[in-house]
């Protein structure tokens, strides 16, 4: 099995065409995506809902805010 496994410590691995990428995905690559997706799929905390609903009150284009009571 004299595979051409000798890799010089250059950036050669990073320069491979992207078409070859899918074939060399290690096991953890899927884990990285899972890590990301697990956060994306979390329900949004109320603090964000509150913040988003408050944004409309502070419209940056609208100088004539009538926020004073």
């Amino acid at each position, binding site marked *: 099995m004299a595979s051409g496994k000798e890799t010089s410590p250059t*950036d050669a691995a990073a320069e491979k065409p992207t078409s070859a990428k899918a074939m060399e995905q290690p096991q953890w690559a899927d884990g990285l995506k899972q*890590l990301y997706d697990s956060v994306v799929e979390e329900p949004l905390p109320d603090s964000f809902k509150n913040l988003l609903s408050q944004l409309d009150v502070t419209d940056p284009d609208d100088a004539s805010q009538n926020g004073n009571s």
Partner: protein
Amino acid sequence: MSVETRSASEKADFKRELTEVVPHLRAFARGLCGRPDMADDLVQETLLKAWAAQARFEPGTSMRAWTFVILRNAYLTDMRRNRFRGDYDETVAERILTAPAGQEEPIHLSDMHRALLTLPPERREALLLVGAGGFSYEEAAQICGCAVGTIKSRVGRARSTLNSMLAEGNIPQRSIGDDAAHRAILEELDDVAAGNGETAKID
């Protein structure tokens, strides 16, 4: 002054797109700084900045890429102010990644996360953008304000580092409570901040 005449529907579109991108901002921030509470603070800061800068958003372009630039800049700023110490999230420790059939040893999510957090920040963000966020090299380069080749190199180096760490189960305890390691991270960040963000800087 130069008051943008943006229609109500444009503003509504912006708000809707910004809302849709929040889960992705949280995921990116979590990957960058590790701690969920700090990551969420970072996202809130990002949302406020994005909202304030919304006149500069070009409708039809990627809201995710645009807000990631803002989040990234906020992260780099906060990092230099020593707000984040690269701690990792203990609550993920018990979770196990689903391994493909035939794999003898599943990778723990905590190992994955810890390994990720030991990467130099510029490689970590490059890998997050491309490997987790699904951005192309070109998009990631725009977000980081650097050349496409630089992103490819960073992703390649990050991948080979993770390969050796996860394959050998040899994940260094870098960055946790270690002042020397923390200083090293900050120095790397200065390099990242100095070389990047020129073209992509938002604020």
